[in-house]
């Protein structure tokens, strides 16, 4: 009897193997977890340490800005929008301002545009420095954090010196930027719009930022373990990234040479010389490298802008009560996190009829369920960190 069965097994081409049955475990990362940068929750099904499926749960920080914008006037919305991605608050204001200005048919004077540009690039530097420093921390290296954050603090101090706010500058006005304190109503107009010594200090800070980038190359990119942890991990192919709306440095790391600063004229970037760094593989290492190069390009732009800063007014002529003609406009900008845009629908009133906020991080992390399957638990952290998202930018 047994012999028969054995013979049958030998005769047929059946291979007998015993698979170790490992039950799937649901691992809940977040919303309170040290590595998820806020209140992102990932419900991951893991087989051992291998991820079989992952479902991001967002919305813990949903503040309903699109609804709130409908009951506010245009100038008041400035305060809302720089709270979307608070790591680069200043950059969030720009596309909204440009959108409203475009609807009203006005343009900020050149000096205001240059100041906007300088501060946008400084916001980009500070945002990318946070990434450069916190990403190694997620992989277990604590020291780069302190070195890069030190320089970021310098940049934030300079932003604070101009705008009065470190994270939420609220500095843009429709048609220009806020005149410096003392330059307002009833008094004699003060020409001093940037704080004394700002340009020299900024130039110095840019050199220090470049230095810390060199440090990061030595400390992080030169580290065999870091390269091992990030090379070939979390690859986003070009077409998959575009289909999911992944934008900014994340898309450029996949080899897409596209930068809204070159293609959309929302600020006078055409006057400046800078390169678009792109990666080759679209893995975590490329995303790190691209952001580091973007800092260097940003310092280049800031230096050029300081050299070429024109004089003149800070504010275009705008009516005192801002009413925006009826119409629809979508303005997008290259923010540190990617494409940020506002679709403003006006019916001719003092507030928008509808404000659609296109935030970069939302689309950037929507690729996660596809991206994380088949990775290991430690790689969740490596991939999450490399996408550089801010929960305020995801949930709005």
């Amino acid at each position, binding site marked *: 009897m047994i012999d028969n069965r054995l013979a049958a097994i030998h005769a047929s081409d059946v291979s007998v193997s015993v698979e170790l049955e490992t039950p799937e475990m649901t691992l809940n990362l977040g919303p309170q977890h040290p590595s998820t940068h806020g209140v992102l929750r990932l419900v991951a099904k893991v087989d051992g340490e291998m991820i079989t499926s992952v479902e991001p749960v967002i919305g813990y920080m949903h503040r309903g800005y699109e609804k709130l914008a409908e009951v506010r006037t245009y100038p008041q919305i400035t305060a809302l929008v720089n709270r979307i991605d608070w790591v680069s608050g200043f950059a969030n204001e720009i596309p909204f301002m440009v959108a409203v200005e475009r609807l009203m048919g006005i343009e900020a004077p050149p000096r205001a545009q240059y100041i906007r540009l300088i501060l946008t690039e400084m916001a980009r530097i500070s945002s990318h420095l946070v990434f450069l420093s916190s990403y190694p921390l997620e992989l277990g290296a604590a020291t780069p954090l302190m070195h890069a954050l030190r320089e970021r603090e310098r940049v934030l101090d300079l932003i604070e010196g101009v705008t009065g706010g470190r994270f939420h500058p609220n500095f843009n006005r429709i048609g220009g930027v806020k005149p410096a304190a003392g330059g307002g109503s009833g008094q004699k107009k003060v020409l001093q719009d940037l704080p004394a010594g700002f340009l020299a200090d900024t130039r110095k800070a840019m050199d220090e930022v470049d230095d810390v980038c060199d440090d990061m190359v030595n400390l992080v990119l030169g580290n065999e373990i870091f390269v091992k942890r990030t090379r070939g991990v979390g690859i986003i192919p070009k077409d998959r990234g575009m289909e999911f709306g992944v934008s900014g440095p994340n898309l450029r790391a996949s080899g897409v040479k596209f930068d809204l600063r070159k293609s959309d004229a929302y600020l006078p970037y055409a006057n400046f010389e800078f390169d678009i760094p792109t990666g080759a593989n679209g893995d975590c290492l490329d995303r790190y490298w691209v952001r580091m190069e973007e800092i260097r390009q940003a310092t280049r732009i800031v230096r050029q802008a300081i050299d070429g800063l024109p004089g003149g007014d800070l504010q275009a002529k705008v009516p005192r009560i801002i009413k925006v003609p009826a119409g629809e406009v979508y303005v997008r900008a290259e923010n540190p996190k990617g494409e940020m845009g506002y*679709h403003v629908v006006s019916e001719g009133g003092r*507030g928008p009829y509808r404000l659609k906020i*296109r935030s970069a991080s939302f689309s950037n992390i929507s690729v996660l369920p596809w991206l994380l399957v088949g990775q290991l638990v430690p790689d969740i952290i490596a991939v999450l960190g490399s996408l550089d998202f801010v929960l305020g930018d995801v*949930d709005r």
Partner: protein
Amino acid sequence: MNPSEAAEHFAGLVGAGRFSSDFGTAKVFVPRERWVEAHRTLKPHLPFFSWLSAIDWSNERAVGEPAESPVEERYEVLSRLGDVTEGNAVILSTDVPKDAPSLPTLVGVYGGANWHERESAEMFGIVFEGHPNTAHLYLPDGFEGHPLRKTFPLLSREVKPWPGTVDVEGMPGETNTEAGDGEPEAEA
């Protein structure tokens, strides 16, 4: 291509008769039944899916300013596509009637539409037919209503008036539209 050329070009590709390019924003109006087909046609030209959302065109409003002239009651669904070479982009728009707010899903064409459609579904109550996951994205389970509909009141505003009302300007949707009386400071 400048926006008006882009609007015309892409409208020609999808065979849409209506398009606009006001304020530098290229927009092509697609009939509802050709929504998915239009996206499929444009995908080789505009591979970058930027966003999808909707506008609630409504005469009955719980928030914002009352309608000056009546609008046509409908949901307008917008989706923005772009390329990553020259910066051409276009917004596709279609109208969805309020009595049967449904639209076929784009997930099969652009995978990134998944979350955007979930957001629009819960915020506006638009049903995306064939969507793989209809769970709430932002809102808690069991949340009733669709917050971005114009008929949905902003509760905090109902409970307490906006402190900004004492300011120079009146608020959208409030009665003191003739602002400018007794403002604390005047522009130089």
